[in-house]
């Protein structure tokens, strides 16, 4: 079985994150790049399945700037057999539709039985990409899974639905996305880091994938970007036995209760 994991590099949410106020794009200089947290869980799900089953091959795929290569290498240290990096100037500021088209084309090229992604990354949090890739590939999706079981023929799991929890099953080939309810990713050991250096890492341009970023199809464009004024601290008191009363008075005065 061949599993492709969608890997995303994001600005570290612990640090300051900025948008360029002219282009509206992420200011890449402003923050540290890290592997998206939920992506790490997606990789873990693939790697732990590969350890329990025969003949499982894992390909890690990322679309992103040059810097994504080091994130892919770090991710390879957790496990996986190969890495695939789509990098092309024309992808700067790519919208969701184009990104999904590119990732689907790369997944096709690599070959797949199962695609695993995180359900929403910490920077964009669109949460749309996995199902868009599924539609592009013409296969079933099972997104935002809080639990995941993989077998040679199918995937099963549970996810939140309207008014309850839904159990789902998809025959392979399929695309799944997982939530942060899945197990934590492992720390790559020294051995993993050494092995990762020798694993193949292939790069692709848009031409390699046969995708035209300037095709005349509807795109989402950013019209404006502005910085929201930071919130400031208001009144702060130390409890001297009457803070509950004082808070009640504050809330009543503000007419919020």
């Amino acid at each position, binding site marked *: 079985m061949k599993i492709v994991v969608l890997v995303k590099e994001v600005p570290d949410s612990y640090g300051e994150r900025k948008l360029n106020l002219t282009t*509206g794009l992420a200011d890449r200089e402003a923050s540290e790049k890290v592997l998206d947290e939920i992506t790490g869980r997606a990789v873990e799900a693939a790697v732990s399945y590969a350890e329990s089953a025969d003949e499982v091959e894992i390909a890690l795929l990322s679309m992103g700037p040059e810097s994504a290569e080091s994130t892919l290498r770090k991710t390879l240290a957790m496990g996986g057999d190969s890495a695939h990096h789509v990098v092309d100037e024309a992808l700067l500021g790519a919208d969701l539709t184009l990104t999904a088209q590119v990732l689907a084309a790369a997944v096709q090229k690599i070959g797949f039985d199962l695609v695993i992604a995180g359900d929403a990354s910490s920077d964009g949090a669109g949460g749309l990409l996995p199902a868009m890739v599924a539609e592009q590939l013409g296969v079933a999706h099972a997104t935002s899974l809080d639990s995941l079981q993989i077998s040679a023929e199918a995937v099963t799991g549970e996810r939140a639905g309207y008014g309850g929890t839904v159990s789902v099953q998809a025959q392979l080939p399929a695309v799944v996305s997982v939530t942060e309810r899945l197990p934590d990713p492992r720390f790559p050991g020294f051995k993993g880091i050494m092995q990762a250096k020798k694993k193949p890492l292939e790069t692709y341009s848009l031409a390699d994938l046969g995708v035209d970023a300037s095709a005349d199809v509807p795109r989402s464009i950013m019209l404006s970007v502005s910085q929201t004024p930071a919130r400031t601290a208001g*009144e702060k008191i*130390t409890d001297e036995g009457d*803070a509950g009363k004082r808070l009640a008075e504050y809330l009543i005065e503000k007419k919020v209760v």
Partner: protein
Amino acid sequence: MAEQNVLVFLPVLPSGELVGSAAGLLGAAAQLGTPVGVLVAGAGQGQAAAQAAGELGAAKVYLTENDDAPTTLTAPALEAVAAAWEATDPEAVLVPNDIDGRDIAARLAVRTSSAVAADAVGVHRDAEGVVAEHSVYGSAFTTESAPTHGALIITLREGAVEARAEAAQPEVITLDAAQPKSAAAVITGFAENVEASSRPDLRSAKIVVSGGRGLGSKEGFGLAEQLADALGAGLGASRAAVDAGYAPYSLQVGQTGVSVAPDLYIALGISGAVQHQAGMQTAKTIVAINKDPEAPIFDIADFGIVGDAFEVVPQLIETIKAKAQ
């Protein structure tokens, strides 16, 4: 020019009621054009749900009734929205930014080759057409997006739009359930949530009380529940509280949980990590109770109390109850 159609996917709960996000979705749609609801309901539930959609502003409703509980994931709703799209040639499609809504938006966008606006917090119209407003990086930035051409498919953050549409007497058009056009996963089971309380939904509540790891135990977390009930508030939690098992994941507020924007947010025993702030810092008034005077939550709190939540909160509840009498 005639008003443009705006399709709105309105999820129906197993009980037959519309989900809480319906009012905001129709309110947003009315800011853009004529709200046209798309409903997929259980047998016998459709007409009542369509009327409810009308009360919230739907001028027209495309209704599909299923005899049995759905057995395929996303497909019934997706095909209903796609059929309504064919019939109405909409200028925009609004779906809730929840798991099912995102799946519908994603597949529809690829199928119709349309631009998408994910996690919008508002919508408006300019000279060129539909514009979606977004709040980025935990609301540190505000952006606006629009399609180069064609309809815009929008996933709308729950609770973000306060505008409400005027009630309408909807024209109801019945659609037959369509065969799925894409491969789909099957639904093998459904466990209905057993909600013990009648607390308002976290996403749309005017007041939210959240508890953190500082409440120390599942029993301690009961303090947040008591305050929520005294105030008629929705209940939330930090990730640390969820991880410790004090509260279910569905209550997690923050970057990887729910984003809320209530009139009042009260944080009990929550330190205020950036990832938590990302989900609540657009609340109108923020109150924090924390033992640690250095906790970052105080940087964004309008009223901060350095103290023990277990001493402050009971007094707060008592005082409010006394005032109410």
